[in-house]
């Protein structure tokens, strides 16, 4: 999301807004103090392991399930108090699309068009049939559709009233790679002028199409931000081998965890560095004229973030899926403001919630965006 878009988001009210939602099933707290917002032109991915509270959250957002506490607004309207008018701007596609097996696709879409109260049901059906390329199966019974067509019919149903808000539950689940590609393109296109919230288990999908992601675990938001920010937040994993012209001072040894290797003047960093530490070390290398032999920048990726936040830091193999590079491949340029390190604020702990894109977490005891030190080597 560029700054212009972010600025316009700040001005206009969100199309999807959930404030302080909580929901318990008996003693089980399914969702706790969850807040999120999605603006026009934004795609928010809702991530979380099974049982994290995603389905309950979606059910509350669409107005099917009452929260114990909290408020939900779609396009500024309370989804429970002004339910029918609020939901007119809502298109919802459940994961397991419950089509009426006996109904032909045309009748099915026509039925929902009339329920939605669109001014011209027939034209609406024709529009979505054309948009989702359903012409070949328009007369076929819903029960005889392939998985790919079922998903398309589900999305067509959601788009019948040309809603401003789309909530999609695992929209590419069960599709083949070509269908997934087409669906992602479609969702990206829909997200340009709508607010789209999608729940997904597929992390590359979130990286590919979501402007922001919110990670749920045990009913709480444990992280929220752009996929790049979340992944970059974990790129604190830097370590280096370097050759110094003179022995580094105690300050440098202590600050960067430098440990001499067998070869004279060769030191390695024996712990993970935060982005700020890495940037400072690079500055020292430049000013002291040290030779950088090797640099590994661990862009751990969203998957590692997800695993750490949802499994706990001890369980997550932090290096899993990390794309590590050598100095030539991935050493950040201190002068390059677009580099991950150059972008990093002075102290990760001091990053503001806004800078992190955090709306509602992480909270104490739930892990930070940055890994524990010394977890890799």
């Amino acid at each position, binding site marked *: 999301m560029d700054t212009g878009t972010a600025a316009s988001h700040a001005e206009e009210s969100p199309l999807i807004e959930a404030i302080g939602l909580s929901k318990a099933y008996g003693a089980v707290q399914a969702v706790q103090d969850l807040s999120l917002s999605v603006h026009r032109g934004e795609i928010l991915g809702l991530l979380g392991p099974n049982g994290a509270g995603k389905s309950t959250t979606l059910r509350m957002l669409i107005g099917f399930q*009452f929260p114990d506490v909290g408020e939900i607004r779609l396009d500024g309207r309370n989804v429970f108090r002004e339910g029918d008018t609020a939901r*007119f701007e809502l298109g919802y596609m459940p994961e397991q699309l*419950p089509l009426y097996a006996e109904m032909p696709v045309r009748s099915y879409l026509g039925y*929902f068009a009339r329920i939605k*109260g669109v001014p011209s049901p027939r034209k609406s059906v024709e529009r979505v049939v054309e948009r989702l390329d359903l012409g070949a199966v328009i007369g076929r019974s819903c029960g005889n559709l392939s998985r790919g067509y079922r998903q398309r019919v589900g999305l067509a149903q959601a788009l019948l009233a040309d809603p401003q808000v789309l*909530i999609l539950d695992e929209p590419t689940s069960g599709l083949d790679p070509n269908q997934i590609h087409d669906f992602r393109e479609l969702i990206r296109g829909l997200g340009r002028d709508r607010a789209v919230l999608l729940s997904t288990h597929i992390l590359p999908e979130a990286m590919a199409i979501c402007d922001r992601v919110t990670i749920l675990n045990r009913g709480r938001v444990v992280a929220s931000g752009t996929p790049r920010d979340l992944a970059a937040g974990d790129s604190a994993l830097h370590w280096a081998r370097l050759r110094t012209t003179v022995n580094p001072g105690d300050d440098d040894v202590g600050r960067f965890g430098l440990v001499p290797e067998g070869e004279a003047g060769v030191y390695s960093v024996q712990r993970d560095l935060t982005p700020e530490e890495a940037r400072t070390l690079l500055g020292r290398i430049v000013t002291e004229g040290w030779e950088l032999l090797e640099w590994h920048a661990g862009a751990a990726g969203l998957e590692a973030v997800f695993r750490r936040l949802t499994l706990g830091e001890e369980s997550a193999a932090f290096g899993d899926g990390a794309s590590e590079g050598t100095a030539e491949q991935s050493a950040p340029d201190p002068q390059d403001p677009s580099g991950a390190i150059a972008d990093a604020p002075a102290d990760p702990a001091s990053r503001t919630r806004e800078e992190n894109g955090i709306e509602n977490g992480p909270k104490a005891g739930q892990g930070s965006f940055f890994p524990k030190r010394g977890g890799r080597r």
Partner: protein
Amino acid sequence: MRASRVFVIAGREARSIVASPSGAIIIGTFWAVAGLILMSLLFQYRDGVLRLAQTSGMQTGPRGLHINDWVIRLLVQNMGTVLVLFVPLLTMRGFAEERRTGNLELLMSQPVRGAELLLGKFLGAQLSLLACLAVLIPHAVVLAVVSTPDWVWAATAVFGLLLVGLLFGAVGTLLSVLSRSQIEAGVLSLGALLLLAMGPGSLASGRGLAAAIGRYLSILGRFEDFARGVMDLGHVAFFLGATLVILALALRSLDLVRWQG
């Protein structure tokens, strides 16, 4: 509340029952049972007329064996009992099956009010019940051919049957809202309708408060008046009021489902 949405939902609900194989079996069986009842009553009526003619030489007519009393009243009363068995089959899918498949979630994400959805489902079941009761049209033709029924009486009796159908349908809809599967809804509805039909009547025979309550709540007792051709507005108000109360309970139950998820 927008009637158009109610009718859209009712139309689909009725079609899903009537046009489905199981719906065809239900309606076909109802027609067959109703046909057997009519045939049996007509044979009894013929035998009665013949016996009476042989013994006393009386003709059929108001002072003799009238077809309204011997056939229409008994036909409608028997069909009221048959409704106890068949209405659950028509209402059990309504909400329970939608809930099981996830369609209820999708429907509630539409700009539809709970009352619209409930009334749509209820009316849909009533339309399919009308498809069952349409068997009375050929029955009326048969009766017109073999005799000269009192059509006002017959219409009053059928009106009573429709009121019973409304009340039973409301009970079935309520229990479908509260059930997680159509089997559960069907069994619960059957039990509830049997209790409703038989329970108050069994209390009504004694004296005291319990008997008075039993008589007041006796569905079969009130229905019997319609079957006799008596149009009692108090009975009409009772059936319509009870139907509305149960539908209101169903609406609150739908909210309960939304609390529970």
